[in-house]
C-alpha cells in the first residue's frame, strides 16, 4: 500500500523545513498544507503522526511499520530512553552512525530513512508524576521510576540524537486549571527553556549542509493572554527565525495566535479522544496530530470503522453508527469478511474477522498487530478524506454530517487488553486490583476440583455420558 515514489521525497536543500499552506481561510478554519523536510516523505496536512512506545509503534515490529503501514512520521518520548540519566549515559547516545551528524534516534530505533522523527520530552499519553515541574525542568516517568528532565539534558538529547523535529520543553502542569500565579510561572519557564534550546542550537557549530533538528515551540494550554511574555519574545526576530513549527497544547488557542506565527505548521499535543474532537481541532486549523486513540482502540480489540466524508448507507437512519467494531465479540467467530469492506490494508486483504476474533480470544499477540495495521489505515483514509473535503470547500457540512452519522465516542472495551507495563501506567492507590485478571491458576487448585468431581457420582465422564454436553466444550467428546 505504501507506494511512495521518489517524487514524493522532498528534494529541498538541507537545513530547511518547508511548510506551504495551500489553502487557508481568511479568518479561522481548516487549512491544507504540504510539510516537507529534506530526504523525507512529504506530508500533506492535515495528517497524523504515529506515536511510539520505547521506540516502536506498539505491536508493530519495524519491518511491519515499513512494509504494512503508511506512517510518515513517528513521535518519540525522550523519557522512554533516559532511565539511567544522570548516572549513566543513555545507550542510544552512543549509537555509531555512518555519518557524523546522522540521527542517532533514527539509527537506534531503525526508523526508515524517509520517515520523519519527532522527539518530545514525554510519552503520549504521559503518566502523571507525583512531583511538579521545577524551574530547571519537567517531571518525567521512566521505566525505573520518576525523575526530572532538566533543560540542559534536553538540549543535549536534541543535539546528540538529531531528531528531524524537536518539541520545545513546555511547563505544562498536570491536573486542574492552573492558578494565575502558576500560569505566570508557566509563561516564564517555557519562554526561558525555549530560548535556551534555540540559543544552544544556534551556537552549535556544525559543517554546512548538516541537517539540524527543527524546533517546534510549544504553545501552552492556558489562554494566549496568560502567555504574553513568552509570545512577545517568540515573535521577536532572533527567536522567530529559529522556530519551524508550533506544538499546540490547546487547539482553542489557535485563533488568538500572534499573526507572526500563522505561517508555521501546528502539531497538536491535544490528545483528542475521538474523531469528533479531532475534527474540532482540524476546524481550527491544526495541521498535524498525535492521536492516542488509535493504539488505545487496537489494545481494546476495536477495529475502527469510520470514514470521512461519512458515506451513509441510509441517511434517514436515526441511530448513530459506531466508530469501531468490537472484535472480541463472538459474532465474528466464523465471519470471513474483512474488518471493513473495501479496506485495502494488509489485515483486510490477507485476513478476516474470524481470525482476529480468534487471536484476541486466544490472547495471541498477532491480534493486536493486525488491528494496529488496520486502525492506522483507517486514519490514513480519514485524513485523506478530510483533505479532499477542505479542498472542495465542504469541510463544515461534511463535519456536521459525520457528527450526525456516528456516535460521539469510540465503543467501550469488552475484552482484555495486552499486558500493561510499569512505564505505561501508574497505580493510583494502594490495594488496587489487577488491570487484567491472572491467566493461570495453580495446578493444585485443579487437584481439589478433581477430588470434588470424583466424590460426586459420575462427575468424571464414563463412555455413556451425555455427548452433547461434552461436545459443546469443543475439544473432546465420547464417540
Amino acid at each position: 500500500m505504501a507506494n511512495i515514489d521518489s517524487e514524493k521525497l522532498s528534494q529541498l536543500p538541507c537545513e530547511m523545513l518547508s511548510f506551504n499552506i495551500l489553502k487557508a481561510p481568511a479568518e479561522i478554519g481548516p487549512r491544507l498544507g504540504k510539510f516537507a523536510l529534506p530526504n523525507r516523505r512529504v506530508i500533506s496536512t492535515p495528517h497524523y503522526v504515529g506515536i511510539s512506545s520505547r521506540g516502536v509503534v506498539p505491536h508493530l515490529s519495524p519491518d511491519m511499520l515499513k512494509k504494512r503501514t503508511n506512517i510518515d512520521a513517528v513521535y518519540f518520548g525522550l523519557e522512554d530512553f533516559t532511565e539511567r540519566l544522570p548516572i549513566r549515559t543513555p545507550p542510544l547516545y552512543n549509537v555509531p552512525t555512518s555519518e557524523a551528524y546522522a540521527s542517532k534516534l533514527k539509527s537506534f530505533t531503525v526508523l526508515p530513512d524517509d520517515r520523519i522523527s519527532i522527539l518530545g520530552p514525554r510519552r503520549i499519553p504521559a503518566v502523571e508524576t507525583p512531583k511538579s515541574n521545577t524551574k530547571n525542568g519537567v517531571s518525567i516517568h521512566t521505566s525505573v521510576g520518576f525523575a526530572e528532565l532538566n533543560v540542559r539534558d534536553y538540549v543535549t538529547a536534541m543535539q546528540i540524537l538529531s531528531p528531524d523535529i524537536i518539541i520545545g520543553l513546555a511547563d505544562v502542569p498536570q491536573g486542574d486549571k492552573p492558578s494565575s500565579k502558576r500560569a505566570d510561572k508557566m509563561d516564564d519557564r517555557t519562554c526561558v527553556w525555549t530560548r535556551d534550546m534555540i540559543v544552544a542550537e544556534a551556537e552549535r557549530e556544525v559543517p554546512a549542509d548538516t541537517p539540524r533538528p527543527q524546533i517546534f515551540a510549544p504553545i501552552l494550554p492556558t489562554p494566549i493572554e496568560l502567555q504574553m511574555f513568552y509570545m512577545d519574545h517568540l515573535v521577536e526576530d532572533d527567536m522567530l527565525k529559529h522556530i519551524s513549527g508550533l506544538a499546540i497544547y490547546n487547539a482553542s488557542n489557535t485563533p488568538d495566535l500572534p499573526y507572526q506565527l500563522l505561517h508555521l505548521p501546528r502539531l497538536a499535543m491535544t490528545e483528542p479522544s475521538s474523531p469528533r474532537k479531532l475534527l474540532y481541532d482540524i476546524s481550527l486549523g491544526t495541521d498535524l496530530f498525535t492521536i492516542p486513540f488509535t493504539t488505545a482502540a487496537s489494545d481494546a480489540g476495536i477495529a475502527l470503522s469510520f470514514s470521512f466524508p461519512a458515506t451513509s448507507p441510509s441517511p434517514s437512519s436515526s441511530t448513530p453508527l459506531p466508530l469501531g467494531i468490537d472484535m472480541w465479540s463472538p459474532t465474528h467467530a466464523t465471519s470471513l469478511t474483512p474488518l471493513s469492506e473495501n479496506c485495502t490494508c494488509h489485515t483486510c486483504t490477507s485476513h478476516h474477522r474470524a481470525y482476529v476474533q480468534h487471536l484476541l480470544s486466544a490472547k495471541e499477540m498477532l491480534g493486536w498487530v493486525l488491528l494496529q495495521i488496520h486502525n492506522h489505515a483507517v486514519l490514513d483514509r480519514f485524513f485523506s478524506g478530510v483533505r479532499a473535503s477542505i479542498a472542495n470547500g465542504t469541510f463544515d457540512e461534511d463535519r456536521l454530517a459525520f457528527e450526525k452519522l456516528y456516535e460521539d465516542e469510540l465503543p467501550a472495551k469488552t475484552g482484555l487488553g495486552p499486558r500493561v507495563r510499569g512505564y505505561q501506567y501508574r497505580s493510583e492507590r494502594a490495594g488496587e486490583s489487577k488491570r487484567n485478571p491472572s491467566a493461570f491458576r495453580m495446578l493444585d487448585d485443579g487437584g481439589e476440583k478433581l477430588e470434588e468431581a470424583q466424590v460426586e457420582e459420575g462427575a468424571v465422564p464414563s463412555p455413556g455420558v451425555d455427548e452433547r454436553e461434552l461436545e459443546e466444550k469443543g475439544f473432546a467428546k465420547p464417540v
Partner: protein
Amino acid sequence: MASKAMPSALKFDLIAKCSVTKARASTLHLPHGPVSLPIFMPVATQASLKGLTPEQLEETSCRLCLNNTYHLGLKPGQATLDAIGGAHKLQSWPHNILTDSGGFQMVSLLRLAKVTEEGVRFLSPHDGTPMLLTPEHSISLQNSIGSDIIMQLDDVIATTSPDLARMEEAMKRSVRWLDRCIEAHKYPERQNLFCIIQGGLNLDLRRECCKEMVARDTPGIAIGGLSGGEEKYAYCRVVDTCTDLLPEKKPRYVMGVGYPEDLVVSVALGADMFDCVWPTRTARFGNAITSTGTLNLRNSAYADDFGPVEEGCGCICCRPVAEGGLGITRAYVYHVAAKETAGAHLLTMHNVYYQLNLMRQIRTAVVEDRYPDFVKEFFAQLYPSKDKFPGWAVTAMKGVGVDLLE
C-alpha cells in the same frame, strides 16, 4: 490391525545419504507444497506464531509449521473450524501445517489426566468440566483442522517413569489406538496420518512398537514420548534403535526436539523432522540463539552493544539496512525486550530463522557428503574447547562413526 488400506498424500524423495553417519537429505512433497528435509518446524500453537504475521513467518523461509490440536479444539473449537473451512483458511497460511493429536498436552498441561482404553479423561483447564478425548475425536478434530500431516492419539507417559508394566501397556495401547485412528481418518488422500512409536526408554519395547507400527504402513513415522526430561544418552539410544528399524523411504519425525545440538546429533542418528517451542518461547524471554550459544539480551552487558544479534546472520533483523534488513542491534533488543511485544517479535523472527538456516546447512552438508565435518565444526563453534563437548553427543556420534574429540 486395520483392514483399510492406507493411501498417502505425500511423496518422499530420498536425495542423499551420509556415507558415514545415518544422516539423510530428502524432499517431502506435501499437499501444500514440497519441503526439504531434515526440517525444523516452528510451533504456531494457536494458529499464530507468537506475534508474527503469516507473511513474516513465510519470510523466515518456513513452509511447514505446527498447530496444536488441543488448543485449536478449545479455541476456536471444531464447529468454528468446520464453518471457516480449516486452519489454513483461519490463519491465511498457504503452506503446510502439521498438527499433533492433543495427547501430549494431556501429559504436559494436565497432571490430572487419566487414561483408559476408551481415551484420555481430564478436566477442562478452563472451567474444570470433565472431558474425554478419544482417538476418534482427535482424528475428527484434525480432519476439521485440515492439516497436511496429522498425528495419531497415543498414550504418552513420562519416559522417566520406572513402571515398566505401565510403559508396556501404554506402548500396546498406542498401537491399538493407531488402528482406531486409521479407521476414523476421513481424508487419507489429502491428510497424512503419522504413527507414533512409544515404549519409553526401554529398547525392547521400542523395537516391538516399531515392528507393529511399521506394519500399519502409515505415510510417515514419529518417535514420541521423548524430550520429557530423560537423560540425553538414553534419548540418543532410543532414536538410534528406532531409526535402524524404520523403512528408508518414509520420513521420520522426532517429536518435541529443538536445541541446535540435539538437531545436529539426531540427524546423524537418522531422523528427518523436528519441532519444539523452545526457540520461540526463549525469544519472548529475550534470548537469541546464535552459533556460539544462546545470548540473554536482557542482560545489561548488551545495553551498549551495537553489533547485530549475530554477525553474518541472514535474518531480517540482523541483516544490515544496505542488504534489505533492519539492522537491529543488540542494544535495541535490550531496550525493547520484555517491554514492548515488538521486541519479542524481532527475536522470534531471528530464532526461527536460525533454526531453519541450521537445517539448511545440515542438508547441504549431507548432500555434499561432509556431514561428519559439519558436526565437528558445529560443536567447535558452540563450545570453547573439546573437553566442554557434552558427553552424550560424543557418545552418540561415536556410535555412528564420528569421533568428535579426534
